């Protein structure tokens, strides 16, 4: 049925065209990060024929002051920005701390919870799972205010720990559902066999079940990492000293203009870790995102 070569080529052309259409904005974004100002602000799109520059990366990642660039380049770029800082390495460090912290916390907590949900039955279990899922239904802005006051009282305001807890909270519903779907795939017989052989419940969990869901664990971790790495609103509302990358980028939109060069540079840099991670666990992610709805 698929032997018609013309149809096959047509399919290839369509597939590449559509995928490249979806990749284009990212390509355009990365390209812009190497462009001088004049090339970004051109009324017809500029693909080549501009002088590639690393200035945007030198300012955001290298700590070169923006003013020194302006004096180097004459008037180009003087339209935008004030004295605000564009050096973003501290933001990257903040983002790494928060994303790693909340990933570890979310994965540990959700795995325990998912094991409990997967291996035991109790009354109201469906309702309990729905309750966990419903944690995701509150608009983040509404959680931000009470948590803001709460963190102030607990001394968690503007701390990494505070933001880690907030991101963990956001990630938990999906993480629990994901881990449960992976754990459900491990036959209960294995647990029973291990316990007949004299292992206690904890040993069974740790030594028998865990090694079998490593892939799922990795996929869940990557998803949590990306959610935290890209989360905007809570980071914006809950911290002022600590600025995660998305918040830092949003500060480049200033009252006197938008620093597209720096925005695109930092934005491009921020994509690298997430993309590496997501490609590594793609296979497990695909299985897990369906929340086990693929079984039978």
């Amino acid at each position: 049925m698929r032997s018609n070569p013309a149809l096959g080529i047509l399919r290839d052309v369509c597939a590449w065209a559509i995928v490249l259409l979806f990749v284009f904005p990212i390509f355009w974004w990365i390209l812009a990060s190497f462009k001088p100002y004049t090339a970004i602000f051109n009324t017809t799109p500029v693909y080549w024929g501009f002088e590639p520059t690393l200035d945007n990366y030198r300012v955001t990642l290298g700590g070169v002051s923006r003013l020194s660039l302006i004096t180097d380049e004459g008037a180009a770029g003087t339209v935008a920005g004030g004295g605000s800082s564009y050096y973003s390495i501290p933001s990257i460090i903040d983002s790494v701390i928060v994303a790693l912290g909340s990933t570890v916390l979310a994965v540990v907590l959700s795995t325990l919870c998912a094991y409990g949900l997967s291996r035991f039955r109790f009354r109201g279990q469906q309702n309990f799972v729905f309750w966990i899922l419903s944690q995701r239904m509150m608009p983040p802005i509404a959680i931000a205010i009470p948590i803001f006051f709460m963190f102030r009282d607990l001394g968690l305001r503007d701390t990494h720990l505070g933001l880690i807890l907030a991101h963990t909270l956001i990630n938990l519903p999906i993480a629990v559902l994901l881990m449960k779907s992976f754990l459900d795939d491990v036959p209960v017989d294995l647990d029973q066999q291990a316990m007949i052989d004299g292992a206690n419940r904890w040993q069974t969990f740790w030594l028998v079940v865990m090694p079998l869901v490593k892939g799922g664990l990795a996929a869940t971790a990557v998803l949590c990492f990306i959610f935290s790495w890209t989360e905007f609103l809570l980071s914006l509302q809950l911290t002022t000293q600590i600025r995660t990358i998305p918040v830092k980028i949003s500060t480049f939109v200033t009252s006197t203009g938008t620093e597209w060069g720096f925005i695109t540079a930092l934005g491009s840099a921020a994509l690298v870790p997430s993309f590496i991670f997501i490609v590594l666990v793609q296979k497990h992610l695909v299985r897990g995102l369906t929340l086990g709805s693929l079984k039978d």
Partner: protein
Amino acid sequence: MASSTIAAPAASRRRSWLPRWLTAESALPWLMPVIALLLAFGVYPLLYAVWLSLQERSRITRQFEFVGLKQWGIALTDPRTWDSFQVTLTYTLVCLAVQVVLGMAIALLLDTERRGYGLLRSLMILPLVVPPAVTGLMFLLMEDAQFGVLSYYLKQLGIIDPANPLLANNNTALIGVMLADIWQWTPFMVLIFLAGLRALPKEPYEAAAIDGASAFQAFRLITLPLLSRVIAVAVLLRSIDLFRVYDYIYVMTSGGPGTQTETLSFYAGRLFTLANFPYAATLALIVLISLNVLAAVFIKLFKVRF
């Protein structure tokens, strides 16, 4: 929580001074950390929001005063709330429809063993790792009336009028925002549907081919029913996030022009920044309640089991 294990032969042999529901042989201890965290940082904010929604800031003392359901009454008669509700609903339904249909079409297209499609499938999920705030900025730059690459090509194709920039026009601003959402989240649908397609059994298709069914008939009569649960889960997860959309609007239009792109979530956010906490909390709760009802109905209707 009345627990009963599926089977735990070792438990009876183990001596324990703890009641059974506190041991590792029951669900509660496993769930406890998550329950504790959700109670502290999930339930408390919820109760706080409910409390806030029953208050009003006194004009004279600047203190909160209990006013009962007054805020809820205001919300029901405030035309701006209804407008933002409508915007939210439009946004959710249009994005959802486009993402499901487009996602399914692309998934079908990429579901093959032909050479190079592994790479295509990896490239397709790239948009998912872009922070939504960055996506918003990305499309803001591309939709810029003067310098935007997207505006440029749309103008060339005669789809948009040069005098009418996408995001500044009452009728098209919401579309401009939706483009960002659709770009970012269609890959999510593709990812999920591809997983579903890859797990389908081969036999029904062989049988259908023998019976002379067309590819479209096979899709409608075999693929769709078999994928219904996967589609249901994807729609559920996506609707929850679509209905609360905030980032794209914050970055791209701030609800404008006027209030044309103001969603419920964004209206609530704006009220928060204006320090009208009680009314903002009320709107946030309306979002929560709407989603709870929608999700519960949906789960019943499509028999989603976790």
